[in-house]
């Protein structure tokens, strides 16, 4: 299902998986063709982080990006969307260079605690990102909010995007 490579110039595109790994948790995985220390750098240095966190296809403008990847340090991302701005923010709870990064998502109530784990093997890095919600209900809400009013795809996409960005 993930082997659609017709439009992919890079033959070795790795597979991204997303699953609901428990009642309260969503797990994203992907292998990156590079050592863990470079993935870590891209995740913890603002000037690198902002190059990939908001792919161009999202159609959003990143106005500012602050990343202070130390225990207790904060991050803050501000986007322009339509006429308004929206911010995503939180703080880092655990910082183990090249290996493990844990942060909060504080822009919404019931936000997840995100845990990034990097596992390097033979020059490649398995990236695991877990979003652990405070309850099953909060996880359910994150996965279905914005769809019940039936206001169409734009809102659904925006909603999915917001959750992804928050993650």
């Amino acid at each position, binding site marked *: 299902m993930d082997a659609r490579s017709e439009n992919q110039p*890079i033959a070795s*595109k*790795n597979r*991204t*998986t*997303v*699953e*609901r790994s428990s009642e309260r948790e*969503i797990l*994203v995985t*992907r292998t*990156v*063709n*590079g050592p863990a220390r*470079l*993935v870590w*750098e*891209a995740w913890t240095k603002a000037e*690198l982080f902002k*190059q*990939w*966190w908001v*792919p161009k*296809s*999202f159609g959003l403008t990143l106005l500012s990006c602050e990343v202070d990847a130390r225990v207790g340090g904060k991050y803050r991302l501000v986007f322009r969307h339509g006429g308004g701005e929206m911010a995503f923010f939180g703080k880092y709870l655990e910082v183990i260079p090249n290996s493990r990064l844990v942060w909060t998502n504080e822009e919404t109530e019931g936000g997840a605690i995100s845990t990034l784990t990097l596992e390097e093997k033979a020059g490649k890095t398995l*990236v695991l*990102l877990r979003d652990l919600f405070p309850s099953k*209900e909060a996880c*359910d*809400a994150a*996965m*279905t909010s914005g*769809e*019940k009013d039936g206001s169409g795809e734009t809102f*659904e*996409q925006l909603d*999915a*995007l917001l*959750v*992804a960005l928050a993650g």
Partner: protein
Amino acid sequence: MVKCSPAELDASFAALADATRRGVLEQLGRSDATITDLAERFQMTLAGMMKHVGVLEEAGLVATEKVGRVRTCTLGARRLEEETAWLERHRQLWDARFDELDKVVEELKRKEKNNGRKK
């Protein structure tokens, strides 16, 4: 359906054997509703409606979600579809994001190679 165990089938048939519960399913097919909404519509007590919804929930026909003090009911299958759709959108977003991350890491690798490893 052939994979349903006799016990599951029993639960489904028992759930559907009641006219009120069939009415609740029909109602939820149109839109989600709270227990209070359903109790009012079918002119019963909250406790009575909770019992009916409980039977439907056990049969896997209805899912409920409590937000604050309000419990909302949805058709079980629809909820699963929503989740599946959400997971796929979430996967696409992360896939796009990781594609960009790949480029950043490639660039870092290239720079390291050019500079020799200084770190």
